[in-house]
């Protein structure tokens, strides 16, 4: 039941100390007119054994299929050590490290995490996480508006090749402060955002430019050209990146025009897919902008005895100090995921992370090669990619996906709802978890599905 330790005798004694006759009396300040009596609609308690059985059957209904879906959430190998440690009670059941002396474990892990993220993204500093990649993107737009105070337009150029859900979340959140998100078209042949399409905005008052590398289609953007265009015009650049890809790709801080705010989804770093969350958003920036950054930040300092220690710092940016003038309303973040990611990155190290990235890249290449051999399947874009690809089929995607699902294969994401202009487009992904045999299974099944329907 309610995990309550009180014995009947305890309750009696405590009521006596308080000086009331019953527990009910403790609620006597609630106006009788609104007092609830009991709780309808919740049902009776189950014991742990019963709930276990219920949840086992609910879990079973999800099964384990062979999945080639990416689109912002990626199946990676997660070392057993990651969650064996991250789930330890001392991490799992502690609060935000407000009492620094009693939270050195969490604080030091955050400091290590910040170091890793800053280095991965080529920036100076990183925060202790935001909710997820999409909301981090929204925060980055708001932050860019604060950084670029000279600009009055609040016009944010966002490539249409940025994840559609990220754009949707950014719209929900930033429209409240009047930001205007304007889409920059991608090039239909390469799948890239071309510098040329920015030229239309030469001379306009643009508050920020946002690009994703690799973009939603898995395609590698010409980040040097894009960032340089912005830098020349003193327009802050927001980079949305996949952290695994940064083992291979030039970090935003080293793009020709650089970047001002780097954000992304941390899920690939040791966080399970879990139907979409909890994940974590990360954010890194230049030291010059650190006071505009939302979210918690841990810093190293010294104690009374001169020994080093860690504490939350720059709290004057945050809601609990600055209240209505804080950089964001964020309070609770995704701390435990950060602990897991720090473990993951420690186990991978520079070499391991590079291997993961390279394996994903190679697997996706093998997948695309296998699939485009099937009549009726072709690659949509010509530009180099990281670990996702858009394929075009010769017929609507949805029924094909359904056919493959019946064979326990989740064959990718149908792009029709978000990118109708791409026709029968399918976004596929193969990470290091996919073997040559898996790819073969997919290719055969897809070949048969397309044949069967051609025949029919």
């Amino acid at each position, binding site marked *: 039941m309610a995990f309550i330790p009180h014995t009947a005798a305890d309750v009696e004694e405590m009521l006596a100390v308080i000086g009331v006759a019953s527990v009910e009396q403790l609620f006597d300040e609630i106006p009788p007119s609104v007092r609830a009596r009991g709780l309808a609609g919740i049902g009776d308690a189950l014991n742990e054994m019963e709930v276990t059985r219920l949840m086992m059957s609910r879990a079973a209904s999800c099964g384990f299929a062979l999945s080639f879906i990416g689109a912002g959430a990626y199946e990676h190998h997660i070392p057993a050590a990651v969650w064996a440690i991250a789930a330890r*009670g001392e991490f799992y059941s502690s609060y935000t490290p407000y009492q620094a002396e009693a939270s050195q474990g969490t604080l030091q892990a955050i400091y290590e995490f910040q170091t890793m993220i800053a280095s991965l993204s080529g920036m100076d500093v990183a925060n202790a996480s935001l909710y997820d990649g999409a909301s981090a993107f929204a925060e980055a737009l708001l932050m860019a508006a604060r950084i670029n105070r000279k600009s009055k337009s609040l016009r944010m150029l966002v490539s249409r090749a940025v994840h559609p859900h990220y754009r949707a979340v950014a719209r929900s959140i930033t429209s409240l402060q009047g930001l205007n998100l304007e889409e920059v078209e991608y090039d239909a042949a390469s799948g890239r955002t071309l510098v040329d399409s920015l030229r239309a905005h030469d001379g306009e008052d643009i508050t920020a430019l946002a690009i994703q590398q690799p973009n939603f289609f898995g395609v590698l953007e010409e980040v040097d050209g894009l960032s340089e265009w912005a830098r020349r015009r003193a327009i802050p650049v927001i980079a949305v990146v996949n952290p695994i890809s940064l083992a291979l790709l030039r970090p935003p801080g080293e793009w020709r025009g650089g970047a001002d705010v780097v954000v992304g989804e941390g899920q690939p770093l040791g966080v399970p897919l879990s139907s979409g969350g909890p994940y974590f958003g990360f954010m890194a920036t230049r030291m010059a902008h650190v006071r505009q950054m939302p979210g918690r930040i841990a810093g190293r300092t010294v104690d009374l005895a001169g020994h080093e220690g860690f504490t939350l710092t720059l709290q004057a940016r945050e809601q609990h100090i600055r209240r209505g003038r804080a950089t964001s309303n964020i309070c609770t973040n995704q701390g435990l995921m950060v602990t897991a990611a720090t473990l993951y990155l420690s186990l991978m190290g520079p*070499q391991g992370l590079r291997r993961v990235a390279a394996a994903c890249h190679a697997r996706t290449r093998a997948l695309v090669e296998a699939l485009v051999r099937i009549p009726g399947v072709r690659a949509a874009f010509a530009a180099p990619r990281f670990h996702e690809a858009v394929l075009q089929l010769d017929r609507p995607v949805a029924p094909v996906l359904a056919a493959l699902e019946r064979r326990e294969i989740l064959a990718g994401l149908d792009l029709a709802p978000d990118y109708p202009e791409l026709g029968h487009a399918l976004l596929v992904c193969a990470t290091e978890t996919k073997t040559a045999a898996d790819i073969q299974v997919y290719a055969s099944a897809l070949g048969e599905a397309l044949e069967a329907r051609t025949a029919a």
Partner: protein
Amino acid sequence: MAPRQEPLIFQYSRAGRGAVDQWPREPDTPLEIPRELQRPRPPLLPEVSELDAVRHFTRLSQLNFSIDTHFYPLGSCTMKYNPKACNALATLPQFLARHPLAPESRGQGVLACLHELQEMLCALTGMQAAALGPMAGAQGELAGVAMILAHHRSRGDLARREIIVPQAAHGTNPATASMCGATVREIPVGADGDVDIEALRAAVGPATAGIMLTNPSTLGVFERRIVEVAEIVHAAGGLLYYDGANLNAILGKVRPADMGFDVIHMNLHKTFSTPHGGGGPGAGAVGVGPLLEPFLPIPIVVREADHYRSLTERDRPRTIGRLSAFMGNVGVLLRAYVYMRLLGSEGLSQVAEHAALNANYLLARLAGAGFEVAYPSRRASHELIVTLERQARDSEVTAMDFAKRLLDYGMHAPTTYFPLLVPECLLIEPTETESKETLDAFVAAMVSIAREAREDPERVRRAPHTLPVRRLDDVRAAKQLDLTWDPDARAPDRPG
């Protein structure tokens, strides 16, 4: 057995070392990435063995206080026991493996839990509909205020851009209002802890979008004139937002909708015992009355015949939209679902009763021991406030000193200096999962520290003495920013 200090993971690093078992094989095809897009130098990640990593992070964990090891009466944070079953059952392998964009036919078990969770949250709060997407309390607030603003806008009433917030409100309330582009209007709280009704009357008007309240308030007392407050705000055309971060004291006792609230967010990571994880993740589900239902953020899970489905923008054209890339913190939601099923309606009512019992007992004991409580004439809700103004004056021992000294007694400190309007305060929330013996031990520690404050104040002022570090220099932390490790710089405690 915890080490007093633990080197940085980078300090274990040696070129060429690594947890190779975790690495995939080197692919046999070359990179198809143009050289100018490739990373020129590897990132600064440690090169350590698996044992190095396990040992380092295990030791780090031991440097923390946590619910599993310590009493943690952090006010407004509801640090209660996080049942192990919730973690075990939310992390069943199929749940973990499920891709957020997998077909819904392969996630009916998850969607069923989410749908039932929505229903249970509605039952608890009296609201008509709920959405689970917001990823923490503050994002729930954002959703709520955005819905209020969308509602006014939908009626063509563009003037309502003011959000009223009582002085004592949690920082996220004004921060959220600002983040939503609204203007924050603070109103004072009376000496008895209730909102100053006259100030409220003066504040409302045609610019009023709504008011954000939490009840019981962050002062640890129940807003007794809530019905009147609701009438005033509604009469002025505004809506009422309930900051439901802390529902622990009202479960089964009073429903926010019945008090007149139009929208609520709930911190599942407090009342519903999902863990705080050293900072998160949480979940900030929102509930609404009929007026705001069309504006709920997507996704929302509905049941259609025997099938569960997530609603999208197509189903809910007036939605304030999507707040997370996928479906919010599903794993957290599953934990809350398991928790609620374990408690059932009776258990949830017991939570409120025993949370209130523990808080009022502590209040009585602390008052009896000579501590000054902030609202002595009031019932405590699930938490209570002690002010150490006298101690600060007499012995120059502050609330922060008390807090730090409590750590030496093996107890986490209560919340300090919040709410802002009570000087030298400790906001103490024992929660229902702590036993009378633990509360008695807390009172004994407080009494002992009060004696120390008189007899040996320096001991208190320089606390903690028994933790891995002594008191940390926050000022230096903010002035001499050291936010990432620089392999070439010296550590501060090894001055050259």
